[in-house]
């Protein structure tokens, strides 16, 4: 078996909001995991592989084996670690385990609630970083350094950045599950009129921190044929990491092209070019990361991402519709599981059940990233 013999067969996204004071991280994670299993048409006891976060209380926080008592049986495979229990990385590792015969049905996901969860406030920042925090550099300014480098080098404009925000936020406006549902519509001028956070990012250029959860279930394509939803195969995958997140100052010259080798690997494995992908579910903590990924994925040349998005390519009716659900900018950013939501949206698009459905979508890319965070992971998905 190879990765493409593995399919995503179940997805679940919980409610997403700026705060979910009535929820705990554990109950969001349990809803996600059990919801994805139910969506797959399977029983908890069918699952024998777990790459899902266990936030506690009970069990042992951070140890995926804690799920064995919830799922009702011994597990054949687990993967621990927050970034391994979500999104594209979780999918490729679970798919690798299934294709290697280590387990048959795997679940990936988790949830986060700030008030009762272990995470406290969710501001996206990591633990204290000695040579970063002392100068008032947090996540938004660190990403801003990379964006500024791109602007300086290629002349990318604030209007081009704002085009990304307006496009994706207007998708989210039409998504009832979105944290920003019903807000907008936004014009480029609306984005530019919002308060400056860290040049070149205005308030509406950056995503909103929130809470929620999500999960995915994977099994073999063969087994997937007997399950209720059309299987979505893992056609290709890749990751690329340049160091510990935020430990070194991110600059365009050092991390601007992060993802090129991961994308080359993933698309090569899938036997596709980026131009052949029907829908894109990409990490959008800010407007610039979308422009950067257009270039990294090979949809346009380096430096041409600004004019490329300004030409309407990423709109719902454009050639390369991007983040139809509203992305992190308008749908949800909830810590780690926003990575899973990127895959959930791609799967819904390929099933034909998405809110802002791209007609006839057969292939998708779901990507988790952060140039400033020094990592890039993507999966190429397609109808099996």
């Amino acid at each position, binding site marked *: 078996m190879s990765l493409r013999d593995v399919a995503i067969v179940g997805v679940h996204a919980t409610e997403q909001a700026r705060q979910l004071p009535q929820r705990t991280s554990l109950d969001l994670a349990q809803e996600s995991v059990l919801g994805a299993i139910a969506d797959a048409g399977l029983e908890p006891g069918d699952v024998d592989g777990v790459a899902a976060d266990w936030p506690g209380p009970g069990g042992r926080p951070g140890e995926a084996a804690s799920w064995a008592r919830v799922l009702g049986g011994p597990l054949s495979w687990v993967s621990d670690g927050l970034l391994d229990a979500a999104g594209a990385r979780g999918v490729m590792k679970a798919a690798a385990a299934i294709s290697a015969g280590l387990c048959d049905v795997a679940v990936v996901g988790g949830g986060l609630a700030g008030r009762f969860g272990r995470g406290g406030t969710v*501001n996206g*920042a990591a633990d*204290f970083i*000695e*040579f*970063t*925090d*002392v*100068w*008032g*550099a*947090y996540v*938004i*300014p660190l990403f*801003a*350094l*990379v964006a*500024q*480098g791109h602007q*300086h080098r290629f002349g990318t404009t604030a209007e081009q950045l704002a085009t990304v925000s307006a496009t994706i936020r207007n998708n989210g406006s039409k998504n009832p599950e979105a944290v920003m549902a019903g807000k907008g519509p936004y014009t480029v001028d609306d984005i530019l009129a919002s*308060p*400056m*956070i*860290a*040049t*070149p990012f205005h308030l509406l250029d950056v995503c909103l921190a929130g809470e929620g959860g999500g999960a995915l279930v994977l099994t073999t394509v063969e087994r997937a044929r007997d399950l209720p939803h059309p299987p979505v195969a893992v056609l290709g995958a890749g990751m690329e990491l340049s160091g510990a997140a935020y*430990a*070194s*100052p991110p*600059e*365009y*010259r050092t991390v601007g092209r992060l993802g090129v080798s991961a994308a080359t690997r993933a698309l090569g494995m899938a036997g596709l070019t980026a131009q052949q992908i029907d829908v894109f579910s990409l990490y959008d903590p800010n407007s610039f990361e979308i422009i950067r990924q257009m270039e990294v994925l090979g949809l346009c040349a380096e430096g041409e991402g600004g004019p490329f998005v300004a030409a309407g390519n990423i709109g719902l009716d454009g050639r390369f519709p991007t983040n139809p659900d509203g992305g992190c900018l308008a749908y949800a950013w909830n810590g780690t599981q926003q990575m899973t939501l990127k895959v959930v949206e791609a799967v819904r698009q390929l099933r034909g059940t998405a809110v802002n459905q791209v007609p006839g979508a057969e292939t998708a890319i779901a990507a988790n990233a952060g140039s400033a965070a020094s990592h890039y992971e993507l999966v190429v998905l397609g109808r099996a």
Partner: protein
Amino acid sequence: MSRLPTPTELSGEFWTAAAEHRLVVPRCERCAAEFFPPERLCPACGSPEWGYVGNAGAGTVTSFTVVHRAPSPDFETPYVVAVVELAGGCTLLTNLVQVDPADVASGMPVEVVFIDKPDGGALPVFAPGPADPSNEMEKE
């Protein structure tokens, strides 16, 4: 402004020197690479043998952002977060001071200055520096 971090076994000498208004950076004893931030092994050659050496603190702004929303009330906005490349090749994150944020540009020459903290110690930041002598020649 922010409080200084608790030094680690890697960074103690950096902060001790900063308190005395000296900028020091790690320099590999095997391959002579200068790097920042300090880490256990030289990122250029992997050697654990390195020591801090003094740096004159002249550098160039390579990236910057003007921050209007601070992570805590310790920072007065707007302030400039920048990456400065020092003579010797290593880069560090820092703040730019004594400059109108509107006048900051990539490529501008800067030099280190130190901000003393009320609780002791000092934070290295950068201010507009003397222009590169070769540029001065061009102006004349």
